[in-house]
C-alpha cells in the first residue's frame, strides 16, 4: 500500500487540474464526482495505509517521486515521508476534508461557481497533504504556500464583494510575512546543514548544536514566525477573523480544521530544533497563552456567528501552542485532531444555520432554532460541549485537560501558563454557550428556509460522533489510562517528562478544570438566557462597553497595524507614484534644453557678432599661450 502514498496528494491535485481544465464543460454531477471523489479516494487510501501502518509499525514510509533539483549539493526531492505524525494529519485532512466536501455539495449547490469552488478545495487538500507529507522543508514550504494560495482564493471566493477580496489579500499578506521569516530560517538551516531534509536536520541538529545555541534559537524563532502567521497566533492573528468572508465549508476546512494548524505541525515536526532552543520554545508557550486569552475575550464580544468560531479557533490553537511550548508534543497533536473534529462540526452547523437563515450570520437575529433545526441543534451542542470541554462526555475535555495538566506537571510548565490556560478554559465555555443560547434558544427572529438534507446531516452526525468519542483513545492515566494516541506518536514525538510530585494532584486539577468549564456554562446561561437584566446592566456600564468595543475589534490590532504599517506604506507608494528618480533624469533633460536655448541665442545671425566670436576665440587661444 505504501507504494500508493503518492496518490494521496496526487488525487486531489488531479481533481483540481481536471476541474480547471474541463470545468466549464462538465455537467454538475461529474464535477461533484470529481471534486468529492478525489478526496474520498484519498481518504480511503489514507485509511488503508493507516491500517497497514498500524499493523506493520515501521518507523516511517518514504517515497521519492523525483529529484526536484540539484544545485551544488542542494538537492531537495519531491519525496513523501509518512510517519505517525503525518499519519494523524493526513487522516484529519482527508477524512474531515472528505466530509466537508460532501457537505459542500449541498451548501454550494446554488452557486454559479460551483466548479471553481471544488477545484480550489481539491487544490487545497492536495497542497495540505504535500505540506504534511513533505520529507524536506522546501517541499513543505511548497505545500505551505500552496495552502496559502487556496486560502486566498477561497476567502475571496465571492469576489464581487470588495471586502471579501480585502480579507483574502489580508490573509495572504499576513501569512506571507510569517512565511518570509520561515524562508530566512530555511536559508540558515541550509547554511548550517547543507540540506533541508527534515530527518537529516533532526538527526544532525543534536550533534551540531548544544542546547541553547544562538543559531538554533534564531532559526527556531524564524520558523516560529512562519507557524505564527499560518496559525493565526499573536501577533499575526488578525487575518483569521476576516477570513470568515469565505464560504462556510471553507472556514470549516481551512480556517478551523486543517490549514491553520499547519503551524502546530511545523513546530511538532521540528520539535528537535525547538528542544535545542528553549527560549524559542518558551516563546511558543507564551504566545499560545496570550493568544488564547486575547482571542477568547474577543470571541466573547462577537455577534457574527462565524467570527465567534474564528476567534475560538485562534484561541484553541493557542492551547496547542501552549502544549507545544511545554514540550507536550503529542498533547498538542491530540488537541489538534479533536479540535479538527469539533471545530469543523461547529462550522458546518453554523453553515447549516446560515443557509437556513438566508445567509444571516448575526446571532442577534437568530434564536429559537432549537426546534426548527433539531439535527443541527444537537450536533452543534455536541460540538459546543467539546469546545467548552464539558467533562467526561466530550472529547475536548480529554484533550484540553491533558494540556492543562501538563502546564503544571510538565518539566517546562509554569503556574502562570496553567492559570492562563485555566482562565482561557473558563472564557471558552462562556463564549461557547453564549453562542448556543443566543442561537438556539429564545425567540425565533428570522424565517427558516432551507432544511438540511442528507449531504449536510451526514457529515454533521459523523463529526458529532467523533467529537464525542474521539477523546477516548487517550485518557488520563488516573482515569482509564488509555494511551493509544501518544503511543502511536511516541516514535516520533518524545513524551513529555512529568514532574512526579504533581501526580497526586491530578485528580484535583481535573476537577478544577471541570468546574471551571461548567461554571463558564452556567454564567453564560445566567447572562444570556436566565437573567436578561444582567446583560442589560453590562450594556449600560460605560467601562464594560468600552472593553466590549475594544475586544470586539480584536484588541485593536487591526487598527494598530493599519496605522503602523499599511497606511505609511500606501502613503509612500502614493506620493512616489511618479518615481522621484525619474525626475532626476528629467532634470538633466531640462538642463540640456536650457543650455540649448542659451547657445541658440548666440547664433543670432548677425555677422558682426560672428566676427566677435572669432576674435574672442583668438583671444582665448593667445591667452592660453601666454599663460602657459
Amino acid at each position, binding site marked *: 500500500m505504501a507504494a500508493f502514498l503518492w496518490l494521496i496528494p496526487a488525487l486531489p491535485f488531479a481533481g483540481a487540474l481536471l476541474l480547471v481544465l474541463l470545468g466549464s464543460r462538465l455537467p454538475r454531477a461529474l464535477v461533484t464526482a470529481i471534486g468529492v471523489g478525489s478526496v474520498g479516494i484519498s481518504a480511503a487510501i489514507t485509511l488503508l495505509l493507516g491500517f497497514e501502518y498500524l499493523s506493520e509499525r515501521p518507523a516511517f514510509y518514504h517515497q521519492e517521486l523525483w529529484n526536484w533539483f540539484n544545485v551544488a*549539493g542542494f538537492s531537495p526531492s519531491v519525496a513523501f515521508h509518512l510517519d505517525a505524525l503525518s499519519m494523524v494529519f493526513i487522516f484529519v485532512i482527508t477524512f474531515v476534508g472528505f466530509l466537508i466536501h460532501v457537505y459542500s455539495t449541498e451548501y454550494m449547490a446554488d452557486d454559479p461557481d460551483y466548479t471553481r469552488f471544488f477545484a480550489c478545495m481539491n487544490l487545497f487538500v492536495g497542497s495540505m497533504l504535500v505540506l504534511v507529507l513533505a*520529507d524536506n522543508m522546501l517541499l513543505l514550504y*511548497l505545500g505551505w504556500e500552496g495552502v496559502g494560495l487556496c486560502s486566498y482564493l477561497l476567502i475571496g471566493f465571492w469576489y464581487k464583494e470588495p471586502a471579501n477580496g480585502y480579507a483574502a*489579500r489580508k490573509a495572504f499578506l499576513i501569512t506571507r510575512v510569517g512565511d518570509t521569516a520561515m524562508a530566512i530560517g530555511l536559508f540558515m538551516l541550509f547554511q548550517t546543514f*547543507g540540506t533541508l531534509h527534515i530527518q537529516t536536520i533532526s538527526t544532525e541538529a543534536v550533534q551540531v548544536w548544544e542546547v541553547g545555541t544562538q543559531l538554533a534559537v534564531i532559526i527556531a524563532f524564524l520558523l516560529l514566525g512562519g507557524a505564527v502567521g499560518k496559525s493565526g497566533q499573536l501577533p499575526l492573528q488578525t487575518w483569521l477573523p476576516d477570513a470568515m468572508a469565505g464560504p462556510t465549508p471553507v472556514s470549516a476546512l481551512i480556517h478551523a480544521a486543517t490549514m491553520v494548524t499547519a503551524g502546530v505541525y511545523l513546530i511538532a515536526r521540528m520539535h528537535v530544533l525547538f528542544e535545542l532552543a528553549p527560549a524559542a520554545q518558551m516563546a511558543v508557550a507564551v504566545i499560545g497563552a496570550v493568544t488564547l486569552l486575547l482571542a477568547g475575550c474577543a470571541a466573547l464580544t462577537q455577534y457574527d456567528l462565524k467570527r465567534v468560531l474564528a476567534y475560538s479557533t485562534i484561541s484553541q490553537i493557542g492551547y496547542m501552542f501552549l502544549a507545544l511550548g511545554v514540550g507536550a508534543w503529542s498533547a498538542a497533536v491530540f488537541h489538534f485532531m479533536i479540535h479538527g473534529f469539533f471545530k469543523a462540526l461547529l462550522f458546518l452547523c453554523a453553515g447549516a444555520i446560515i443557509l437556513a437563515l438566508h445567509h444571516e450570520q448575526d446571532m442577534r437575529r437568530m434564536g429559537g432554532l432549537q426546534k426548527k433545526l433539531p439535527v443541527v441543534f444537537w450536533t452543534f451542542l455536541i460540538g459546543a460541549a467539546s469546545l467548552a470541554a464539558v467533562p467526561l462526555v466530550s472529547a475536548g475535555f480529554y484533550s484540553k485537560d491533558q494540556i492543562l495538566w501538563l502546564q503544571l506537571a510538565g518539566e517546562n510548565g509554569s503556574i502562570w501558563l496553567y492559570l492562563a490556560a485555566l482562565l482561557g478554559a473558563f472564557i471558552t465555555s462562556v463564549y461557547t454557550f453564549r453562542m448556543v443560547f443566543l442561537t438556539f434558544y429564545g425567540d425565533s427572529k428570522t424565517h427558516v428556509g432551507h432544511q438540511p438534507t442528507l449531504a449536510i446531516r451526514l457529515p454533521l452526525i459523523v463529526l458529532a460522533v467523533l467529537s464525542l468519542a474521539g477523546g477516548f483513545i487517550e485518557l488520563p492515566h488516573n482515569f482509564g489510562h488509555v494511551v493509544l494516541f501518544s503511543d502511536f506518536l511516541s516514535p516520533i514525538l518524545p513524551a513529555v517528562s512529568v514532574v512526579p510530585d504533581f501526580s497526586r494532584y491530578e485528580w484535583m486539577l481535573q476537577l478544577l478544570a471541570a468546574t471551571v468549564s461548567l461554571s463558564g456554562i452556567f454564567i453564560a446561561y445566567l447572562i444570556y438566557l436566565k437573567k436578561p437584566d444582567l446583560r442589560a446592566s453590562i450594556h449600560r456600564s460605560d467601562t464594560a462597553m468600552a472593553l466590549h468595543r475594544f475586544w470586539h475589534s480584536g484588541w485593536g490590532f487591526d487598527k494598530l497595524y493599519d496605522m503602523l504599517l499599511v497606511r505609511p506604506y500606501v502613503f509612500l507608494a502614493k506620493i512616489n507614484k511618479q518615481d522621484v528618480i525619474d525626475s532626476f533624469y528629467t532634470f538633466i533633460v531640462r538642463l540640456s534644453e536650457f543650455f540649448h536655448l542659451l547657445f541658440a541665442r548666440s547664433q543670432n545671425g548677425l555677422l558682426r557678432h560672428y566676427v566677435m566670436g572669432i576674435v574672442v576665440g583668438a583671444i582665448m587661444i593667445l591667452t592660453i599661450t601666454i599663460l602657459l
Partner: protein
Amino acid sequence: MILLWLIVLLLAGGVLAWVAQRFHPASPRWISLFTLLAALLLTLMLWSNTGASLTDSAWLLRLEQPWVPQWGVGFSLALDGLSLLMLVLTFFLGLLAVLISWREIQHKVGFFHFNLLWVLAGITGVFLAMDLFLFYFFWEVMLIPMYFLIGIWGHENRRYAAYKFFLFTQASGLLMLLAILGLYFMHGNQTGTFTFNYFELLNTALTPQAARWLMFGFLAAFLVKLPVVPFHSWLPDAHSQAPTAGSVILAGLLLKTGAYGLLRFVLPLFPTATVEFAPYAMLLGVIGIIYGAILAFSQTDLKRLVAYTSVSHMGFVILGVFAFNEWALQGVVMQMITHGLSTGALFILAGFLYERLHTRDIRQMGGFWATAPKMAVVALVFVMASLGLPGLGNFIAEFLTLVGAWQANNWLTVFATIGLVLATAYSLRIMQKIFLEKNLEQTVLPDMNAREMLIAAPMLVLILWLGLYPQPVLDLAKPAIEAQLQAYNTPLVPEPEEPSIQTAFYLPATDSVYFQNLNEAFYERK
C-alpha cells in the same frame, strides 16, 4: 557554423518579411512565424544533441572567423549551456511575440516583423558573441529595431518612451565600449597581441585600480539594461508604451541581456573588483527589489505596474550575481528564464485586455472572472509566479538566489526576502483590480480564444515544468556557471553522491559528508 546560420536566418527572415508585404499583407506573419519556428527547432535540436558533451567542456560549439584582423576583431561565436538556454528563451518568446501580434498589429505589418526579427537577431548575437567588439556590435544592433517597435507601434506616449529607452541604453553602452577598449589596450600592452577575443582577454592581469574602472564601464551597460534602481527610469515608460510584442521582448529578453552580460563578462573578467564591489551591488539589488515593489504597488497603468515588478524582480538577479556561488547563479539563470515567461505572460495578458478594452487603466477594470474565467486562471498562475509561489518556476529562481545570497550577506538577504512580502502586495492587487471585485463598467469581457490559448498554454506548461522539474535547465547551465565562477574559487561543495535510496525506507545521514564539508568551508570563509 550553425550559430552563424541562426543569426543569418533571422536577418534574412526579417528582410523577406518586409519585402513580402508587397505581395500579400498577411505573409510577413507567416514568414516570421516559420523563421522563428525553424530557429527554435534548431536550438532545441542543439540541446538534444548535447547531452553527452556537456560534461567535459562548458562550450558546445565554437565559431571563429577573422573579421577585422587589423584590430584583432574576430567573428567569434560560441555556445554554452547558458547561451543555449537564452537562445531557447529568445526564440520561444519570439514565437509568442509573433502570435500576439497576429491581430494587434494591423498596419505596416511587414516592417513590424522586420524589426521584430532583427531585434531577435541582435539578441541572439549578444548571447553568442565571444568577441567583445562583436558583442558590442550586437548590443547596439538590437536597439534600433526595438526603438522602431516602440516608436511606431507603441501607445499614446510612444515617442517619449522610445527616446528614453534608446538614450539610456546607448549612453550606458558607450561607457561599456570605453571599458572594452581600455581592456583591449591593457591586454595588448601586456601581451603584445591586440585582440578583442573573450577567451584571450580573460587572461588579462589588471591592477586593482584599472579593474575597478573597467568593471564600472561594463556595469554601466548591464546595470542600466537590467535595470538596477537608480538607472531604471527608462523601463516603465518603454514597457508600458511598447506594443505587446515589444513589451514581451523587452521584459523577456532585453533585460536578460544585462543579466547575461553580468554573468558572462563582469564576473570572469574582473574577479577582484567584483568582490570588492559586491556588497554595494547587492545593496543596489535589494533597493531595487523594494523600491520597484513599492512603485509597482502604486501604479494604475497595468503595463507600468508590470514593468515595475520587473525592476523588482531584476533586483534578485543582481543580488544573486554578486553572491558568487553556484546556488545564486543558478538562481539567476532560472530567474532570467522564469521572469521572461511570467512577466512576458503578464504583458501578454495586458495586451489581451488592451485589445478588448482599449485601456490599460486598472481602475476601469474589475470583475472579469465572471466572463473570462480562462483568462483569470492564466492570470492567476502568472501573478502567483510573480510573487514567487512554490511550484512555479520563479520560486526556484528566487529561492536559489536567496539561498546563495544568504551565504554572502545575511542582512541584505533578509531585506531581499522582505521584498517577497511586497511582491505579494502588488501581485494580489493585479488580481484584485482586474478579475475580482465588481464589474463597475458592466463590460462583458470575451474570454480567450483559441489563438490566445495557444499562446498561453505553452507558457503555463513551461512555468509549471520549471517549477516542478527544473533539473534539465539547471544541468544545462551548470558547466557554464562553473566556468564563470572559476575565477573565484573552486566550488564550495564537492559533488554530492547520489542518494542511494533503494528501498521505501529512508536511510538517514547519507548526505552528512557533504554537509560537513560545506560547514567547514563556510566557517573557513568567515
